[in-house]
């Protein structure tokens, strides 16, 4: 008996030691700071998995764009969304990951407007696609349903939806399936931008127009991520499509003026007074051109063409 216990020790020790793996591996072939700087993006760069992960993580949440739309006073419009009836059109893993990203963008918009009934419909579709991609474990539909049916829990629904997507994304990346994460993030961004351009065309809200112009920065990160997998035909096609969008953004200018920030303490919290600014220049014609190209790209994705 005692012999058995002692024999277990080396195995246990090995388990403990391998469990304490250093999470701070910084052996990139390319400096992430250079990659993330919008002025230095070279689609031909071959970058490490770790750098790809950092870019994926840096892409803004669709909730931010949706919030801006709501703030502009625009009403919720279900016609902007990809219908859940389309869910059976997506056959391959890549198509399903893209579709899930599109629906995630829609869900951000739905959640910000607190349309819990519509949210449930979309979460059900997302859960189905996630199951097909073997990541359905991150969507506990029963809990989500309980929250959506309780008006007091709408904030929790928003929190849980975000957290589930975060966890699924981390899991995909840890399983060396970053290519799916890239598709998911790319499609989410396309859908958010699509909705914001649709609203922008209707409202002419200045913050919305400015936000559309600023997507030039994010577009460069998106192209960089997609180009990493361009040895695959699906990614190559996607890269070509998004490059058309880049062309439309080329004449949009964003000027950055740096001024030293100030720091103040308020109620035990540090508050940064940001004195730097970004100024954008974009015309209505440029917005229309961006909107048209984007609509075409999105249509190809949602119709799985």
């Amino acid at each position, binding site marked *: 008996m005692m012999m058995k216990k002692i024999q277990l020790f080396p195995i246990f020790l090995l388990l403990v030691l391998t469990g304490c793996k250093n999470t701070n591996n910084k052996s990139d072939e390319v400096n992430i700071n250079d990659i993330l700087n919008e002025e230095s993006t070279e689609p031909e760069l071959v970058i490490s998995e770790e750098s790809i992960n950092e870019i994926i993580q840096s892409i803004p949440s669709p909730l*931010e764009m949706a919030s801006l739309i709501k703030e502009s006073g625009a009403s919720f419009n279900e016609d902007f969304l990809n219908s859940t009836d389309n869910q059976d059109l997506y056959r391959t893993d890549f198509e399903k990951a893209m579709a899930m990203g599109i629906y995630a963008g829609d869900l951000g918009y739905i959640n910000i407007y607190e349309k819990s009934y519509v949210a449930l419909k979309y979460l059900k579709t997302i859960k189905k696609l996630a199951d097909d991609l073997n990541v359905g474990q991150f969507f506990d539909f029963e809990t989500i349903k309980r929250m959506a049916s309780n008006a007091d829990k709408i904030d929790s629904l928003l929190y849980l939806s975000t957290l589930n997507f975060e966890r699924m994304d981390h899991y995909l990346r840890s399983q060396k399936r970053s290519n799916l994460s890239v598709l998911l993030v790319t499609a989410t961004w396309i859908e958010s931008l699509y909705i914001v351009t649709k609203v922008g065309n209707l409202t002419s809200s200045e913050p919305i127009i400015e936000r559309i112009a600023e997507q030039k920065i994010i577009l460069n990160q998106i192209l960089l991520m997609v180009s990493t997998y361009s040895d695959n035909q699906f990614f190559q096609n996607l890269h070509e499509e998004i490059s058309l969008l880049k062309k439309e953004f080329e004449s949009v200018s964003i000027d950055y003026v740096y001024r030293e920030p100030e720091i103040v303490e308020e109620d035990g919290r*540090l508050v*940064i007074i940001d004195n730097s600014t970004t100024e954008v220049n974009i015309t209505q014609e440029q917005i229309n051109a961006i909107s048209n190209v984007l609509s075409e790209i999105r249509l190809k994705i949602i119709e799985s063409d």
Partner: protein
Amino acid sequence: MKILKIILFLMLLTTPKISFGQCSSDEFLDNCAAKLETFTFIKAFNTEMKKTQKVEYSYIFSKGSSYMIVACDQDIPGAKMIINLYDRNKKLIVSSYNKKSKKHYPDLLYPCSATGVYYLEVTFEGSKGGCGVSLLGFKKN
């Protein structure tokens, strides 16, 4: 007696791992998220490190939004989590730890007026490493 020594040794080995695991639990995350108050949760950066290391995350902040960065650690004196926020040119904007006053700030509020890539550097006081999570929330200005 020998068995007892082995058990004690194993307990010593496993203790740091058990404590590290606590900061990735749902409860730990939910408690931390509550500190975001009225800000909408958008990202969780889990950090677990040993000894003196730094982990860097990046995020594109947008003009017109305010961002709240909340640091949640295991509240071990001398091993608190420190968050440093850098701008696109890697110029330090603010640190959650004031070296002069030796004061830690659990949250940072950043009303952004220049869209771009920002960097969050997470480290721990002292040289023991630690475990924690930093959450990012936002709201419109």
